[in-house]
């Protein structure tokens, strides 16, 4: 169930990390982790963000929640610009926007019982009394497939998959509307991955949530998302409905990514092998960031940067092949 209403409108968002050097910490450059990203997401939608390590997908997710301070740009949610909220406004906002982290091991406090971890948000946001909180924690634990009696146990007593369930329960605690899921299954074994993906699908439908789903694994992204944004070196290079993106990839990078997925099919399609590695985000190539590895590069690509343009309704791509 996807509304037509725009839920979140991200406009030209940038996040630069300054790089300093020398005795007086002179500013010598920036790592442009997120470099001018714009997209909209509708209520009830799952937007997949996919790209290789260092492409800025996690930073983008964290910046939208203001876990990182944006360098510039707007993040419009309802009538407010998240990028400009003060501390008090942010606290109220966190009731609506939550995050699930990649590593459940690192995101849970080892010295807190999981019940306390899940219920912490109720205390912060002043919800209910002690009895009500315990009840709510019990309900949450059952919703994510754990048992209420396990609330008094500590994180080390749970397996990786169970820990990720606890992370999901924490994110759900205060009925958020949007969850940024940052590589929620990449630390898990395949047999456990499927359990967690199913759980995330179920709660998305049950609570009518909106997800920004970040992953590097295209099969996982394809399974979860309605629309998919492909990122490369801090920019969105292609954005389309899932079906459209997989059937009709336009950007050469998307093509290469799709063909790089190891498949179980015995008949292999011709693989597009990219040259080299992703360049350093501190010194991205001139022009189109991808031209150094592109198998369709033209002279213009090394000089002028292509803009993200809508080629067909709902299908955006940033590539000189189409201009």
């Amino acid at each position: 169930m996807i509304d037509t209403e725009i839920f979140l409108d991200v406009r030209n968002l940038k996040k630069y990390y300054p790089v300093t050097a020398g005795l007086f910490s002179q500013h010598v450059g920036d790592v442009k982790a997120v470099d001018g990203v714009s997209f909209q997401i509708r209520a009830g939608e799952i937007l997949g963000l996919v790209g290789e390590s260092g492409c800025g997908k996690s930073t983008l997710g964290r910046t939208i929640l203001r876990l990182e301070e944006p360098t510039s740009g707007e993040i419009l949610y309802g009538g407010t610009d998240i990028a400009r909220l003060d501390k008090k406004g942010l606290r109220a906002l966190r009731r609506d926007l939550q995050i699930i982290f990649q590593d459940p091991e690192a995101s849970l406090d080892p010295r807190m019982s999981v019940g306390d971890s899940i219920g912490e948000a109720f205390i912060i946001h002043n919800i209910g009394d002690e009895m009500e909180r315990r009840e709510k924690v019990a309900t949450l634990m059952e919703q994510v497939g754990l048992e209420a009696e396990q609330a008094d146990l500590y994180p080390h007593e749970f397996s990786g998959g169970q820990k990720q369930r606890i992370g999901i329960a924490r994110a759900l605690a205060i009925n958020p509307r949007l969850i940024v899921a940052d590589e929620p299954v990449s630390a898990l074994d395949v047999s456990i991955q499927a359990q967690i993906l199913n759980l995330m699908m179920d709660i998305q439908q049950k609570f009518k949530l909106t997800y920004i789903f970040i992953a590097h694994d295209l099969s996982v992204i394809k399974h979860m998302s309605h629309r998919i944004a492909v990122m490369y070196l801090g920019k969105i290079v292609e954005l389309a409905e899932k079906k459209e993106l997989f059937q009709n990839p336009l950007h050469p990078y998307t093509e290469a990514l799709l063909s790089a997925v190891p498949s179980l099919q015995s008949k292999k399609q011709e693989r597009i092998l990219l040259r080299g590695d992703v360049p350093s985000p501190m010194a991205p190539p001139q022009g189109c960031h991808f031209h150094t590895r592109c198998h369709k590069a033209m002279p213009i690509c090394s000089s002028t940067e292509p803009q993200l343009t809508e080629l067909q309704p709902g299908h955006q791509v940033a590539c000189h092949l189409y201009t």
Partner: protein
Amino acid sequence: MQNNGTILKVTNLKTRFFARRGVVRAVDGVNFALKRGECLCLVGESGCGKSVTALSILGLIESLQGRVVDGEVMYHNLDLLKSSPEELRRIRGREIAMIFQDAQSALNPVFTVGEQIIEQVKLHLKMGKKEAKNRAITLLREVGIPSAERAMDSYPHQLSGGMRQRAMIAMSLSCDPQILIADEPTTAVDVTVRAQILDLFNELKRNREMSLIFITHDLGVVSEIGDRAVIVYAGKDVETAPVSQIIGSPKHPYTVGLLDCLPDFAKVVDRLPSIPGATPDPTAPPSGCPFHPRCAHVMDICRQQEPKQVVISVGHSVSCHLYNG
């Protein structure tokens, strides 16, 4: 003694770690045979014992406080488990080489890539300095490193992740090993680089007379590179078959489950089939078949008796009571 071109035969290998919380049965009876020139994949989830199997073969387990308590690893006519440290040192790196998952931590950060390869070549092949250097450059070219001369003088941190992985592969090939053991060599790299590395392995397979043991958790990778696969669960081999059969007609419920729960790239489903529960605690494995607490086809006998290996067809064997009798 070895028939049908078997170069390495692992029989009933058992490796334990003696930890404070109990005895960890990391490898609990693994069997497989590696044929000359083939790529055999050891497949399983984390903690199933696939890496420990490799380290046990190479006699590297004692430095990790583990001990091989039973089994046999026959390499030609030599039981590696009974070999002296000197014999093992001669074989390790020269005849059986290994590549680790994380090239970053497997390479020495204070020596250049060239120095590290030259050291190995000089040690094992008794080459002079000049000869060793030329060999190192040839190797770096073979693994697809552009401007190999420059890479020789680079320190590991100056190379990108993909290039470091290639440098490590070059190093492992330096003595023309008969067997190369690669432990998750594509796990720590990005998808596009993974495709390049897999491509390189396929090329090495074609161009060299070498057997490959490829350790991975990714069945997609297995289908790209493997000739045969051994599925490992809780320290035991539960199914062994040619890759086409593992993927086309898997027999063990665990293999079936592993394949089912991969999000299929070709079709869209609402829910993914999943395997309930989690892998067992290696200090207290379940009785009978180790997979029975998670198995959809569990029978009474599975809880009591460990299944014997059954041959389904030529080269395809499975350890499961469903196929017994």
